[in-house]
């Protein structure tokens, strides 16, 4: 019986490091992206082939969005946003391949025989999504610090206007900031994990009786198609929200009327024409 547990299952341990099946999923996505990057940098041409155009399509789509939304400094954070998007997209779509989540070791738990899969969707583990959300959190704080300076950023975060409201507004502000990390991580985890459960349920329902068995060749396929779409949407949402947070952290600087630039960005870089994606 296919079994979906909320926590990733332990496969083996290397010293103190426990390796889970979702870590294998994330590692496979990383390896795939590295191989694709290597192949792409060696074989890409100025006039793109069909394969190259296909690979460039999602990158150009997101680069266009970052260029349109990210303000003058879009080039500084476009690589991070594109990397997050491609990593989450690859990890999500990898989990839909045959064998992922279904091929594994049979184990007996509480008298029931279950399958512990060798590979599980990376984002179906909260550790993966929380890690990515923390990267995004550190990125938007560091962009905020570069734009406002340490003093300006801390003043913005900890001191309210008017100053006597500080004891009330500072905890509110901190809760609001912290909610971004949790919202980013829980959304991705919730959607991908729910997708895994949905696919397992559909498979279990359609294979439950001989009468419904023909449906097993159609119904799970429909849901796999939907999961392809949800995987793309969730990767896009995660990347766009990271970009929005970074853009807002930089924009605070301009809105509070400070004219000194702490980022060290050259003026020609800041006003560079919007072509030639990152």
């Amino acid at each position, binding site marked *: 019986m296919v079994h979906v547990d909320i926590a990733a299952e332990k496969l083996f341990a290397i010293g103190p490091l426990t390796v889970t099946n979702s870590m294998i999923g994330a590692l496979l996505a990383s390896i795939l992206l590295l191989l694709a990057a290597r192949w792409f940098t060696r074989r890409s041409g100025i006039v793109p082939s069909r394969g190259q155009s296909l690979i460039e399509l999602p990158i150009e789509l997101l680069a266009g969005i970052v260029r349109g939304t990210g303000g003058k400094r879009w080039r500084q954070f476009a690589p991070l946003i594109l990397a997050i998007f491609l990593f989450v997209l690859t990890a999500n779509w990898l989990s839909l391949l045959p064998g992922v989540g279904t091929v594994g070791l049979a184990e007996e738990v509480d008298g029931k025989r279950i399958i512990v899969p060798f590979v599980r969707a990376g984002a179906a583990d909260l550790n993966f999504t929380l890690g990515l959300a923390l990267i995004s959190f550190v990125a938007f704080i560091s962009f905020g610090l570069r734009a406002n300076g340490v003093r300006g950023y801390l003043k913005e975060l900890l001191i309210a206007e008017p100053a006597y409201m500080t004891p009330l*507004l500072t*905890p*509110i502000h901190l*809760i609001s900031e912290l909610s971004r990390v*949790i919202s980013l991580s829980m959304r991705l985890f919730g959607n991908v994990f729910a997708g895994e459960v949905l696919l397992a349920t559909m498979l279990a329902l359609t294979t439950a009786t001989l009468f419904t068995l023909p449906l097993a060749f159609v119904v799970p396929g429909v849901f796999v198609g939907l999961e392809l779409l949800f995987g793309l949407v969730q990767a896009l949402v995660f990347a766009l*929200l990271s*970009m*929005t947070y970074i853009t807002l952290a930089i924009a605070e600087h301009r809105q509070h009327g400070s004219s000194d630039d702490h980022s060290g960005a050259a003026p020609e870089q800041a006003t560079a024409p*919007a072509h030639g994606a990152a």
Partner: protein
Amino acid sequence: MGPDQGKDERPPSANWAVAFDLGLRLGISVILGVGGGLLVDSWLHTSPIFTLIGMVLGIGAAMYTIWDVARQSMRR
């Protein structure tokens, strides 16, 4: 940037991302406030004082989030 600098260049896709985010952040703000209050209460044995304070702060943070998103949207 071109001559249309200052216009809202944000594509619609970026707007849905903010919309997706807003609903979840409202709930999470309240949960964080109440959860933090419960933790402090269980630590100091002062139940339910900090739970109530945390709840008020959580609801305040949720309202602040809405105000912040609306303020950013209006500025664009």
